[in-house]
């Protein structure tokens, strides 16, 4: 199990941060993502592998008219 914001989802071997975000449909681009408190740069979201029990925080900024 991993936690992404308030939601809990199944962990899979090889899962990247982006995979986890896709699972809960976090498609908004203006986000600040951290794994266990450490900020992950935008360009590494597709590659950063997460471990079981990791805590991901996806902080959404505001946009729109």
């Amino acid at each position, binding site marked *: 199990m991993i936690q992404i914001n308030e939601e809990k989802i199944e962990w899979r071997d090889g899962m990247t941060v982006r995979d986890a975000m896709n699972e809960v449909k976090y*498609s908004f*681009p*203006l986000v*600040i993502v951290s794994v266990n408190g450490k900020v992950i740069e935008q360009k590494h979201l597709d590659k950063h592998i997460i471990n079981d029990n990791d805590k991901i925080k996806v902080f959404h900024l*505001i946009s*729109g*008219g």
Partner: protein
Amino acid sequence: MIEITINKRKISVEEGTTILAAAESLGIKIPALCNHNILKPYGACRMCVVEVHANGEKEITTSCNYEIHEPIAVFTDSEEALNTRRGVIEMHLARWPNVPAIKALAKANGVDKPRYEHPLKNESKNACVLCGRCVRVCSEGIWEDIITFAGRGAERKVSMPFDKFYERCAGCGACAWVCPTGAIQVTNEANHPVRPKMIRNWGMKVTSQMITLDDQQCRMRKIGTGNLVEIMDDYDLLPTLNYQYGSHENAKKINSWVWQNEYFTQGLPDGCWYGCSMSCAHAIEKFELKTGPYKGRKVLVDGPEYETIAACGSNIGNFDPHYVAELNFYCDTYGIDTISFGTALAFAMECYENGVITKEHTGGLELTFGNKEAACEVLHQMSRGEGFGMILGKGIRNMKKLFIEEYGADLDFVEDIGMENKGLEFSEYVTKESLAQQGGYCMTNKGAQHDEAWLIFMDQVNNQIPTFENKADALHYFPMFRTWFGLVGLCKLPWNDISPADNAQTDEPHKIPEHVEGYCKYFTGMTGIELDSDKLIRMSEKVYNFQRVFNLRLGYGTREHDRVPYRAMGPVTNTEYESRQERYDKQLKEKVGIDPESMSTDEKRLKLREYREDQYRQLQDAVYKRRGWTSDGVPKLETLKKLGIDFPEVVEVVKRYPDV
């Protein structure tokens, strides 16, 4: 990743990185002149030459536009590279001996004096060194081609067409900002700002971010606010069928890729604000109309934007992009707001589907969700002041009254699903899961709009403002901050639709502190009056409280007028409840503390309603307190005093209410 060496130091870089950028990340400085970090590499001045060894071959090449695709060894200061560079510098120095930027490069690279006299010698300190940065920023950044290179060889120079001033130039100053020599100066400061440089420097920060970051962020330059359609759908926030649901399987038919790939024809600066590098308004050219007085004509549609796509699309069950654009065009042509039209029509459609109104009332129109031809017909009727269009044109508040008083509609149902506050139709977000945004829509002066606050992500996704006090703080700060844009007449999109690359490292990233500071500087630069973020809020607070008092004077502005139609709070019908049953059941268990297992949907829906309405009441208490108002939502005398707006006429209005 590719392993390379620079001056024998190892570094692994992403494929496509330039040598110049790779060197920079190692702290190795390579002299450069025509290169600029917000512009595409150009390779004109040859100042940045280095020695590269690849596949056993050696070459001297410019590093700013050399993309790395294989393991290479780079020597930035090999003898051959240095000699070539010195030759280039010498040539520059001979031609432009007094330009500080050239002199500095010469000094740093050990070039003393040119050994020859240049036939085109120009002794000005601000001479143009033909680096082309200005030409590129005007084209790449501002999407204009106001200045270009003209002439060849010795005649080559930067100029406007026919060597005359071209009125299309926005005077944005981007060209002057990137110019390394000061050859370009903006001299006509049309609005007479007190400190023009201050404004330009901050403006260029945003322009630089637009040029370098927008493609990965909100795609404002390509698609504009329409980028939100698929995002809102993903987060269950896209209003569909009069805000019953937040997503729809057909939303993909009207999402931003459809507009970008099949409809929008212009990749141009939009003229919304001349010289704006965000240029978020987009248009469809040669659009052939299918209905109405211009049927068959080809027209230009200005839009659609997100709100229009949702209001005239998903919210009325219309997933045909052609008809979204058609409604967009006719609303604009008739002078009708697309949001109020769409939201009012969505209400009428739900009333029709539930038998509140029938063909008898609509003049034979079948007003079911998704009936796009009927939607157009109602709009045309509205423009002529005829038929059901005339009724719809009066807005939801008047329709509710009419339906209840004349058509015998069920008061509770109509009040629950009529999405308006203070007579203004809701804009296009589903707020059921965000208590703070219910406040953002309804504890407002203007009625149900998101211009004052948009807190859904902070509240619902980040869980960043969990307590009533946190939410009240946000419902103080954001409405005040966003009201300020209206006071000074500045667009707020460059505040939050682009964010600085290092925004994540700031204390309050959701406020985008660098951009708040920038807006303060615009104000100071224009007026000469120092402003910081606290003073900015105070400025708005005065106006905001004035507006509240104004509402009171007109008979609005108390607690009862901040009421939320229940559709904006939670599920009105059992079908709605059941469509998100897992979510609601979980909340009943975890937040309300009851076991939904053996309860009927009716019972569960009512329990949830009780809970949510009570939450909103508590939020009202907290927000009014934070804003310095009475529990009825009236500004207290001490608040008016503190803000310096306790004028007799103002005091007289509030004194009629208890506890002020």
